[in-house]
């Protein structure tokens, strides 16, 4: 039987890079989608509002694991080669987008009404109001909860292991299959996740405190 050695440690650390990459893909894709959804949620058009709301309700009411299976098998139906990275990136994008959309809607709505009214009086168009007045302020409010949500994203990439993408958790399973020391291996895997997520949690808390002091 193999012992859990520095080779395994190195292997797990290398796999952690894929966890980071997947998190990055999910954040970028989900960020773009989330911005569209957030703007849809506060849009003046009832149809856009309804569409964005429905999307968020449906995705937030479905487990990420099921979304993962849907995009994994759905991609193959659409005639594309099954690639776990693409399937995982896609479903995480859908998932992260729904949550960021809802978080950012709150941040946009948290910008005081008077800012809208003042920019109206200055004759800014709706687009100018967003780009010059509302969004810059909303971004400030959004920083802390967004960084906090990044922790969820990193943790949720662990589900990609289930469709066979070799990120940190899957690498842990592989190491465990050769060493048969699940307690040690998965504790070590958990420790790597902790090392990634804890600084984000702390950063989110500090940002939140700073925002409240600034007020």
């Amino acid at each position, binding site marked *: 039987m193999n012992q859990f050695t520095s080779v395994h440690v190195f292997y797990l650390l290398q796999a952690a890079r894929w966890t980071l990459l997947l998190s990055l893909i999910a954040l970028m894709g989900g960020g773009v989608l989330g911005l569209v959804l957030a703007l849809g949620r506060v849009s003046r058009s009832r149809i856009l509002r309804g569409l964005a709301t429905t999307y968020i309700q*449906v995705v*937030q*009411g*479905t*487990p*990420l*694991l*099921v*979304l993962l*299976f*849907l995009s994994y*098998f*759905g991609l193959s*139906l*659409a*005639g*594309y080669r099954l690639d776990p990275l693409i399937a995982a990136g896609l479903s995480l994008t859908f998932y992260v987008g729904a949550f960021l959309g809802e978080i950012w809607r709150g941040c946009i709505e948290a910008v005081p009404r008077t800012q809208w009214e003042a920019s109206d009086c200055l004759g800014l168009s709706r687009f100018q109001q967003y780009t010059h007045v509302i969004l810059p302020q909303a971004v400030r409010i959004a920083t802390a909860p967004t960084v906090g949500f990044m*922790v969820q994203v990193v*943790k*949720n990439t*662990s*589900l990609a*292991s*289930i469709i066979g993408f070799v990120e940190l*958790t899957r690498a*842990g*399973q592989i190491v*465990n299959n050769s060493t*048969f*020391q*699940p*307690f040690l291996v*998965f*504790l070590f*895997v*958990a420790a790597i*996740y*902790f090392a990634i*997520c*804890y600084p984000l*949690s702390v950063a989110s808390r500090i940002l939140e405190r700073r925002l409240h002091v600034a007020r």
Partner: protein
Amino acid sequence: MVREAQGAMAYKFDFSFLADRWPAFLEGAWLTIQLTVVAIVLGFVVGTVCAVLRVYGGGVLRRLVGAYVEMIRNTPLLVQIFIVYFGLASLGLKLGAELSAIIALVINVGAYTTEIMRAGIESIGRTQLEAADCLGLTRFQTVVHIVLLPAMERVFPALSSQFVLLMLASSVTSQISAEELTAVANVIQSDTYRSFEVYIVVAVVYLALSFLYRFGFWLIGQLLFVRRRRLGTAI
């Protein structure tokens, strides 16, 4: 690629497996409900006790609870489940899949509940505690009779959405062969090769469950917080 894409256009959805497999979906959903209700109730108790210790406990207890919360909130549920199921088994403690799933879910939701309830408890005004002191209530009586219910009322929306998220996250326990809804789907899709349709059905069932849970929590809120105050107003 183009030809394949055209093939996809012609793809015919086939939900015929539902005709004889629908009881399996219901059984899976029922096990999901059982697993998560037990986990939510126990996790709420664990979390509330931890939150009280975190706010009113001594330095050591406070730090211990803090470490528990940070450890759980910064690691994935899937890895926690693996540690409980495979890890404990390798140390000689063999638990069944369902029991392991419940333990992992309780530990997980307990940590989130601690953090949410802590916010609730800390939001209770000093004057409430001082008034309870004047009435000669002990610390324990103050917490139980004065603090907990209004604290819970304040954070109830956050609590219930956390619990709905837990219900959805319980799909992960299919990975240690707890026979809940997602595991049932995995079996059926490997029997029928209708993977896309099977997971659409499961997604719809989860969606229905999450609406059911939200309605349930709304009902509990109505029954528990009889004062019918608007949430967020001063207590």
